[in-house]
């Protein structure tokens, strides 16, 4: 029950972030894009901002947070009651003993009462301590899980240009170890800071109630501790950031080495790879040593200052006892307080470490969360209603950065007017593919479906309207069936089979021992490029989108199968708008209009026969491809 509420809350927040990030101003978007690149190589939000943002995340669970703080405070006070009780016990017993007026059994009763009280307080402290620990840990888990889901959602909506640029290994290391760093901070930093401060303050109050001068002297180390740990935190933060970056590099090096192991072997490049690995791995060692040294120096001096307090209390307090200003019991109590303060001193060091790590780890997470979604719904966005399915490019220009990718592209695809697009690599074919489902926005001009500019429609509805099959499709770990119905989890088995039949992959799947339940992926069956493409076609067909975009989607399928897929598709896609992008002319021979792209512009357009008659690029390409064919024939 609680989960449902939480889930919907998360998603509403995600929408919120993306809609606030909307900015219709083009140059603004451009600047944001550039700044993102700059930040990803540099550092994200820093220091206290990060810690504050993490703290704010806990406010979503404010009762949980307050409760754990409350228990932390109670535990701290309880801890201090024990020395109080022990001190009083010792003192009273010896006053009674020294005045000689009381019997031994009276004194023993007093000691026994104190002992019972000590046990009771200890038990209570144990219970509140448990509650505090439990609440602190579950709070930290809630916060980190919240962050994990936000991170996951963000990665899911981030644009392709982002994913093109940032290595999977980097994103994974952020999603795993950095979020864990943040969690550690919530658990051992945020909640414990309350416990530690309460302990120090309460100890101060208790000590001052005995002897304020001695109390001041014994807590003299606290300001130094605060100053030194703040300095240490800064040092460690920088080092941690470097360590995390270096670890990211190491992960990337390793991952590439393993993924490209055949190249490594083929070139006998083991030594070379080892050297590469060595450099990064040694860097990690050095950075970690830096952190250890800084930590040992800072921690050592804080501990030293703390022990100086012991010596001072012994000396000054001892003099006071000798002068009769203080009793032995009171001095004992002081030492018991000091003994208790060992815990906060130890904690502070751990906190410094976790805080330093959290501010760099959190920085790396927020850096991702803060990237504005380049593609987001505008305030007036409405769900797209597809009636006919007319896709229209109106004088579209587009660039990824400074280099123009498309210039002045206009065309219209209708159910009865299939568009085919050919062109050399880099001529802009893929850019057109990317603009139709609004993976990017055009720089000028507009892309519309049934007269609605895509910018005025919700991203979701646009993508629902479009079925895209890409050249190098990704299949997920899971069964073939789940992969095919990935876009529509409710698709029936019949739908799945029909789609697979059209994609000419059904016979293959049916021939597998486990049929549609065969697992794909790292632990499952590997498919060839052509098989992957065919599964991807089936996957898109299941969504039954009114507009179909085939981006070189049969390039690894042999010509015969390709022809069969095409004729099956033709039957099924009657009434659907189809845009075919292909390098193989035979794949788009039957398009009603073929656009020949060159350098981001439409160089030629027309039907196959018209284009041949022009004797331009298309004709050249046709000759080139027919060349293969003619070799066969002669």
């Amino acid at each position, binding site marked *: 029950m609680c989960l449902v509420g939480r889930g919907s809350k998360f998603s509403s927040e995600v929408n919120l972030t993306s809609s606030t990030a909307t900015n219709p101003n083009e140059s603004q978007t451009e600047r944001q894009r550039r700044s993102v690149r700059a930040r990803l190589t540099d550092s994200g939000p820093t220091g206290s901002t990060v810690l504050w943002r993490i703290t704010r995340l806990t406010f979503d669970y404010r009762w949980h947070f307050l409760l754990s703080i409350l228990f932390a405070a109670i535990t701290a006070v309880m801890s201090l009651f024990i020395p109080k009780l022990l001190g009083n016990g010792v003192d009273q017993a010896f006053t009674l003993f020294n005045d000689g007026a009381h019997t031994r059994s009276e004194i023993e009763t007093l000691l026994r009462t104190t002992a019972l009280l000590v046990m009771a307080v200890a038990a209570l402290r144990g219970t509140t301590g448990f509650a505090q620990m439990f609440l602190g840990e579950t709070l930290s888990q809630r916060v980190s899980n919240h962050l994990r889901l936000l991170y996951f959602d963000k990665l899911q909506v981030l644009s392709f240009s982002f994913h093109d640029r940032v290595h999977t290994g980097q994103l994974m290391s952020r999603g795993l170890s950095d979020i864990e760093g943040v969690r550690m901070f919530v658990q051992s930093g945020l909640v414990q800071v309350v416990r530690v401060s309460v302990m120090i303050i309460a100890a101060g109050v208790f000590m001052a109630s005995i002897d304020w001068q001695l109390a001041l002297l014994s807590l003299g180390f606290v300001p130094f501790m605060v100053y030194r740990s703040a300095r240490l935190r800064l040092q460690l933060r920088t080092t941690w950031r470097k360590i995390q970056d270096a670890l990211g590099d190491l992960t990337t090096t390793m991952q590439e*080495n393993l993924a490209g192991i055949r190249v490594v072997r083929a070139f006998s490049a083991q030594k070379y790879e080892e050297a590469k690995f060595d450099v990064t791995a040694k860097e990690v060692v050095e950075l970690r040593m830096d952190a250890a040294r800084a930590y040992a120096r800072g921690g050592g001096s804080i501990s030293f200052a703390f022990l100086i307090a012991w010596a001072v209390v012994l000396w000054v307090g001892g003099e006071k006892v000798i002068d009769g200003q203080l009793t032995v019991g009171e001095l004992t109590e002081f030492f018991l307080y000091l003994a208790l303060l060992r815990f906060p001193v130890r904690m502070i060091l751990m906190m410094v470490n976790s805080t330093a790590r959290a501010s760099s780890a959190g920085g790396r997470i927020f850096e991702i969360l803060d990237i504005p979604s380049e593609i987001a719904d505008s305030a007036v966005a409405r769900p797209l209603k597809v009636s006919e399915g007319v896709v229209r490019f109106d004088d579209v220009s587009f660039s990824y950065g400074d280099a123009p990718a498309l210039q002045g592209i206009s065309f219209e695809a209708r159910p009865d007017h299939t568009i085919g697009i050919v062109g050399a690599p880099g001529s802009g074919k893929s850019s057109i593919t990317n603009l139709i489902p609004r993976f990017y926005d055009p720089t000028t001009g507009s892309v519309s479906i049934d007269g609605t500019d895509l910018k005025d429609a919700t991203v979701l509805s646009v993508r629902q309207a479009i079925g895209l099959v890409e050249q190098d499709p990704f299949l997920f770990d899971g069964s073939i069936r789940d992969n095919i119905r990935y876009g529509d989890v409710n698709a029936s088995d019949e739908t799945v089979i029909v789609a697979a039949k059209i994609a000419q992959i059904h016979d293959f799947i049916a021939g*597998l021992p486990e049929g549609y339940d065969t697992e794909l992926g790292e632990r499952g069956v590997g498919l060839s490029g052509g098989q992957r493409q065919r599964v991807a076609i089936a996957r898109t067909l299941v969504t039954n989108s009114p507009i179909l975009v085939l981006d070189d989607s049969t390039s690894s399928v042999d010509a015969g199968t390709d022809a069969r897929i095409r004729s099956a598709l033709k039957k099924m896609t009657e009434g659907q708008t189809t845009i075919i992008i292909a390098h193989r002319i035979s794949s788009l021979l039957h398009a009603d209009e073929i656009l020949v792209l060159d350098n981001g512009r439409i160089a030629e357009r027309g039907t196959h026969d018209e284009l041949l008659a022009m004797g331009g690029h298309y004709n050249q390409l046709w000759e080139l491809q027919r060349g293969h064919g003619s070799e066969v024939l002669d």
Partner: protein
Amino acid sequence: MATTTPQAQPDQDSNRQRPANSEEEHPNLHESDEEMFAQLDSTVFKRFYYYASPYKKAMLIATLAVIGFTFANLAIPLIVKIGIDSAIREGNSSLLAIIAITLIAVAGFYWITNFLQNVLITRVALRVLYDIRADMFLQLQRLALSFSDKTPIGALMARMFGDVGALQEMLESSIEIVGDILTLLGIIVILLVLDFQLAIVTLAIVPALFLIRIIWQPIARRAFLRMRRNSSIVGVYLDQNVSGIRVVQALNRQSENHGIMGGKIHTFFWSTVRASRLGGILMPTVELMTGAALALVLIVGGGRVLSGAIEVGTMVAFLLYVQRFFEPIRTLTMHYAVLQRAVASGHRIFELLDIPLGIEDKPDAQPIGEVAGTVEFKNVTFGYDPERPILRNISFKAEPGQTIALVGPTGSGKTSITALAHRFYDVQEGSITIDGHDIRDVTQESIGGVMGMVLQEPFLFSKTVLENVRYNTVGATREDVVSACKVIGAHDFVMQLENGYDTTLEQRGSNLSIGQRQLLSFARALVADPKILVLDEATANIDSYTERIIQVALKKLLAGRTALVIAHRLSTIRTADKIIVVKDGEIIESGTHTELIGQDGLYAQLWQTNYTSFDDISGNADKLIGAPASST
């Protein structure tokens, strides 16, 4: 009859796909969580010791520092006791001053030893981890490819990072473990010396504590195990969705995935709640024990003070020590979990390091030296699973400068032939020779020097174009790279990149088209300039413009070299000096194009049916030649 089912195609034409049916023949390196909480095991510690032994001196100093540190740590309450008993209660101010100064001196000693132990142990820990990680890396570089074929990269990465990280945690907390144990022992000794009777009574609490722990351990272990498993499920799901982001967005799976991820996180959360409840439950127990011990000191100790058996200072010292006594016990409980995790990780690390290499240089292996480039297969039989040979009785000879085209349906064994030539695997029967040298008798590294390889799916590193092209070729200059790219026809598009040859390629070279990646891998082979070239021609997934460039480049690349080409294009096949048609692991036809056309076999039939590619036609090929229908 052995038809090729898709699972039985270990020579799938791409390095991204992994045959997955034969895990049983290799140590299974998939996550086995049950191992996670393996018993503490002496063999693992022996292995650790092996890695730590080069740093004996540093460890000795570190141990001394730990002892000194513990000593200082324990001395402090004792000094306070002496201060109270001998100086304060006697009213001796000058003695008090001396004792206070001693305390300061001990604090200084504490500082130094603390610093030393921290820095030294961290250094040893990091060096040891570095050595272990480097050994793992080396091992992965050397292991036969049959291993990496079957082991997911994710599982290896988990070992390199997750498990080594767990070791790191242990090695770093080992200072504290040693310190804690020493402290415990020290306190026991001091208590016994201070007052034997009181000490015995107080320490009576300890066995009870251990009893409770023994009961608690197995219950908590299960909870922690479940937590870890759920955590890795969340990680795997994240990985999948980052890798498949294009599909996620194109098919609008965000909200569906949000729900799935939410569910996985929810499960994970509740397992953490349970684990932390179980982990925390020990806390009230320890606290109660501490309270009981303090109470005992008060009652028994107080009685003994009253009867004059001990001094007040002794009782104060007892109170101080008892408080401290339970602190290490508590942290040791924490460290025990770390230790267990580290041992389990150690098992998995050493398991990886212990896998036999599979392919090793013979002890007397010599570099192959200069070669003319004759490659000969003699009666080669080979299977990834020796029981099921993929190749049977393969024999052919490539003379220096000849191009041999290997053709045949997917799964016929072409890729296996090329992999064997490079000794990625060892043959089961027969032999492969280069210029008459059996490749098993020469060093593997020297084979790499004379034999180049171009993969069908070119792998590029996320380095600059320059670094990718001159990959591992010692002494290749920028000019070499540029001229190779010019020869291959890659220069023009490289110059169009943002920073030309210094442009850093994106992950797997995704900012280049497949054809461009292919050209760069040609250039890479050209820079390496091997006598023998093994080339897996790309299938039809290259556009016609680039394809023409590639055809030209290929001719230039093959000129003057012995080449084994897995050919998909008729033009390549036609110009080959010899065509070898492979089907179901056997050579069924061989000869020149003209000869084969005359034979009216599989080749001739394929030729006549006008296929532009030999790839992905297994099903049709069977139908064409009337073979029993395969399962496709």
